[in-house]
């Protein structure tokens, strides 16, 4: 009897709790709403911040990290209930993003410099945190991408619910990855910096390896981990050099250190290799086009759009802030690396047919452009033109921001395409503009921004880089003066090739007619949130392109903090005119450009559009020089589009091309067949990676000789080592 009652009560309780659970689901279900509410709340917090002063920015930054960690913790149960990942975890990430944007923006606006200690870590080495304008800028950048990802993610991960992959791993690793990136920005000592850095690297390894059924993905993930760890070693060594000259591991102690030029150069070289490896600069980029495409699309967006920027942040923090005194030779090296990455990155991008791989190579290009800005800044700053150095730094930072916006947009849209068509190969797509019209518009905005076309945002940052390079006549050395404009021409070549690359992408993927059955049957995603994520970024692309002057004025705090000077033409600029140097030297009024294009468009449309007729155009068969009978197979493919470039830049690629001619087989009634093979590989594999790999194999082969496999041998090794160490200590 009693047993029965207990059972019944417990049943009712469980039913009630399930009801409550369902209600909670329904409430939290609309995560657009919850992010909106969060936005409102943070607006109130921002108001509070203005009222209390900017100290709240640090609070928001830490809150953002905590929310990211919370999203990670919540996801532990995601395997049992996918709802946890889809709504709770992504909502927490969105909140983390909103906090990051608010905290970062306040930090940049108020030019705060808040330091704190965190009672964790080793007893004598507390973790130091610090938020200043530079880290605030990158925090805001992470936040913006995070908001878009949190909108996009829930609909995208539904696909994984039916697979055997663990949703918990995805959620946990994503939260840790984001927390790691934010902690890298907040770290104020080398020790904590490396912990956060490793958290970022290792957790993203699990994300790259998420679709681990395919061997190629596992290989890519291993390569990524290998290069990330090798890079981390270089960064540790770089910090080690600095620490050797200072009294501790904190950044404030390292800033005080005075290095001899030789040691400074050694530290810079180590830092450049370490951070450059993570940023994907050529020739250390090999992991990037392998790892970025195989991760889930929203993670690809975070890796390409945001993680590369964290590496850029590391380089800026290390060279401009910690090393302090820059040398122009470093600037030249960075400039050359940047130019090479930009040109080669876009050339390789042009050759790719996998959409996400193409976008990954284009990230190499854009990191190259950012490096060009940084290199120019170093050259000018170290030769006594700090204001021009500030201009180069602002150009690099603005491009970092813009790249975060449009590359996240493109990866998320590529994710939408992948989700709707299950196709990653451009050569099998086509005509998606008819079936996925909204994604088509969003993707077009991304392409226009990336190709540096006015009035979008990519153009502004490239224009600023051009303007910096054109101030070369201020330099005294004739060699520098003639070298710097040549890099500007490299940038121009990059711009032209990028436009060609994205005409190819858009033309092959969205225009023309579908090249395969499942692409023909594709339709627009029903999820509004999946469109809202990249759509939000598209709006920002336009805003940052049309109103660059106010945005750049916001950024001025960073060069003031790092170089001690603001932009040369800062006083002359208004919201309408962007005049980085002076109004006489160069001016660009993006709002007026947009207005003029719209006015000319409306006027010509009004004048020309016929009135009084039922139809303004008659539709018919395509003309095609009168040949007729078009099929989708007759369209120009991506490979065909890129063919002139493949031929003209043949030296840059590792091309394997083969044409097989199979004679007709009369018995089986098969006509003559031609089979064409084309493989375009990365030259750096043969030039750099294979020799290094072979050398490591050889060395490890030699090392294996002392391993006999007998326990007594190993014991004697240990004994001898111990004796040696005792001897060393006793000396």
């Amino acid at each position, binding site marked *: 009897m009693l047993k029965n009652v207990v059972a019944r009560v417990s049943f009712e309780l469980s039913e009630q709790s399930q009801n409550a659970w369902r209600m909670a689901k329904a409430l939290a279900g609309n995560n657009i709403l919850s992010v909106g509410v969060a936005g409102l709340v943070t607006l109130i917090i921002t108001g509070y911040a203005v009222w209390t002063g900017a100290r709240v920015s640090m609070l928001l930054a830490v809150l953002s990290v905590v929310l990211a960690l919370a999203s990670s913790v919540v996801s532990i149960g995601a395997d049992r209930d996918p709802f946890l990942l889809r709504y709770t975890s992504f909502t927490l990430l969105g909140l983390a993003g909103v906090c990051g944007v608010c905290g970062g923006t306040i930090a940049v606006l108020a030019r705060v410099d808040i330091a704190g200690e965190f009672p964790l870590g080793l007893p004598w080495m507390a973790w130091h945190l610090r938020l200043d304008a530079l880290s605030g800028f990158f925090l805001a950048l992470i936040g913006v991408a995070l908001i878009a990802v949190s909108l996009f993610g829930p609909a995208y991960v539904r696909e994984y619910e039916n697979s055997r992959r663990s949703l918990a791993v995805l959620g946990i690793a994503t939260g840790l990855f984001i927390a790691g990136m934010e902690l890298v920005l907040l770290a104020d000592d080398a020790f904590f910096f490396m912990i956060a850095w490793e958290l970022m690297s290792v957790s993203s390894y699990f994300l790259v390896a998420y679709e681990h059924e395919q061997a190629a993905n596992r290989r890519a993930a291993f390569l990524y981990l290998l290069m990330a760890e090798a890079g981390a070693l270089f960064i540790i060594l770089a910090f080690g050099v600095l620490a050797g000259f200072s009294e501790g591991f904190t950044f404030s102690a390292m800033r005080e250190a005075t290095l001899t030029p030789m040691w400074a150069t050694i530290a810079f070289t180590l830092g450049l290799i370490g951070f450059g490896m993570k940023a994907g600069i050529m020739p250390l980029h090999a992991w990037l086009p392998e790892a970025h495409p195989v991760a889930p699309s929203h993670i690809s967006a975070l890796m390409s759009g945001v993680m590369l920027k964290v590496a850029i942040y590391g380089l800026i923090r290390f060279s401009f802030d910690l090393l302090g005194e820059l040398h122009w030779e470093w600037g030249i090296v960075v400039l050359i690396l940047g130019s090479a990455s930009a040109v080669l990155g876009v050339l390789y991008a042009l050759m790719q047919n996998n959409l996400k791989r193409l976008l990954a190579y284009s990230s190499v290009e854009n990191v190259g452009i950012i490096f060009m800005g940084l290199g120019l800044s170093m050259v000018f700053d170290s030769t006594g033109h700090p204001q021009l150095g500030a201009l180069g730094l602002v150009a690099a930072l603005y491009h970092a921001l813009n790249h975060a916006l449009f590359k996240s947009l493109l990866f998320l849209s590529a994710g939408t395409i992948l989700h709707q068509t299950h196709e990653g190969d451009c050569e099998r797509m086509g005509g998606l503009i008819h079936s996925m019209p909204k994604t088509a518009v969003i993707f077009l905005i991304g392409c226009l921004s990336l190709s540096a076309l006015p009035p979008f945002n990519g153009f502004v940052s490239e224009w600023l880089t051009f303007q910096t390079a054109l101030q070369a006549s201020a330099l005294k050395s004739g060699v520098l003066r003639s070298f710097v404009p040549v890099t500007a*021409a490299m940038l121009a070549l990059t711009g032209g090739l990028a436009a060609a690359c994205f005409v190819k992408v858009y033309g092959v993927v969205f225009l023309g007619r579908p090249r395969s059955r499942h692409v023909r049957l594709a339709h627009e995603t029903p999820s509004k949130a999946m469109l809202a994520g990249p759509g939000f970024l598209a709006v920002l692309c336009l805003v940052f392109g049309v109103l660059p002057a106010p945005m750049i004025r916001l950024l001025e705090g960073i060069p003031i903090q790092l170089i001690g000077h603001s932009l040369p033409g800062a006083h002359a600029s208004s919201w309408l005119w962007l005049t980085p140097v002076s109004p006489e030297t160069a001016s660009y009024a993006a709002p007026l450009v947009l207005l003029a294009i719209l006015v000319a468009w409306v006027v010509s449309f009004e004048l020309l559009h016929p009135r009084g007729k039922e139809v303004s155009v008659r539709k018919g068969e395509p003309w095609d020089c009168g040949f007729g009978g078009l099929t989708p197979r007759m369209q120009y493919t991506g490979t065909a589009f890129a063919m002139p470039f493949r031929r003209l830049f043949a030296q840059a690629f590792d091309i394997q091309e083969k044409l097989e001619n199979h004679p007709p087989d009369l018995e089986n009634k098969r006509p003559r067949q031609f089979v064409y093979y084309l493989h375009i590989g990365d030259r750096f594999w043969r030039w750099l990676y294979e020799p290094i790999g072979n050398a490591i194999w050889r060395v490890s082969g030699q090392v294996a000789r002392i391993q006999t496999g007998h326990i007594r041998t190993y014991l004697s090794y240990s004994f001898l080592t111990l004796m040696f160490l005792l001897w060393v200590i006793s000396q």
Partner: protein
Amino acid sequence: MTWLLNILEPLLFIAAAPLFAGWIKWLKCLAQNRKPPMPWQPYRDLAKLFRKETLVAEQASWIFYTAPYIIFSVAVLAATVVPFVSVDMPTAEIADVIVLVGFFALARFFQALAGMDIGTAFGGMGSSREMTIASFAEPAFLMAVFTLAVSASTTNLSAAIEYHLAHPHLIHPSYVFAALALMLVAIAESGRIPVDNPATHLELTMIHEAMILEYSGRYLALIEWAAQIRLMIYGVLLANVFCPWGIAQDTGLSELAVGVVAIAVKLAILNMVLVASETVLAKMRLFRVAQYLGFAYFLGTLGMLIHIVVEVGT
């Protein structure tokens, strides 16, 4: 007065562009012993196209319908920015020469997309070739312009021209190289012989024509007109930047009259040069164009080096 002039001048520019194209054709026919159409024939052609019915392929997307308007609007905007009869117009400051290159790139981007929209082989072929040539032409163009920008320490066209006018006694050997480079680029970008033949409709050699094959009626008219405006922009750039004398620096009527006559004379001379080269030269293979534009880039770089080594002094 300045603002009125500022509105009138681009309108004059746009209106004169077909005449400039017709004039070249007229002169070329005469030079080749053919019977020429009158120089105002392009106006008749445009009027005819505007009146005709517009036929569009049924699988065309909105890109195909909007591209002509974008191309034309951007051409009009570019014409507003380039100093034509007088310098120091208020609108000239909207965009400097790098933005001008950006405008051309924007128009080309949409033109190439429109070429691929219908899904014909010719359209894609034209787009691919156009983008190939453009990606070589753009650095050469900028290199030529940078020489100018560095010596006048400005990228604003108006300011550069005024600098040049204010220092007439300075001799710039680097300008000769920059002007030659810009001329080569202008020929490539406006689709003239030896890079592209505007008169051809032979399927395998066309570039610009291949992209606009599917257009008809008013859309075709807009694109043709925009191409004529672009050709004239290159002409005016060459004429006014490297040889600015005669351009009006004031809004006085006599100055403006001199300005109009001066630009007409300069364009006429350029016309003759263009016609002479088009008559003498043959069209080159597509893969030779890279070398041709590489040469233009080389000339631009040489101009820059000469400027740095000879003209600045250390």
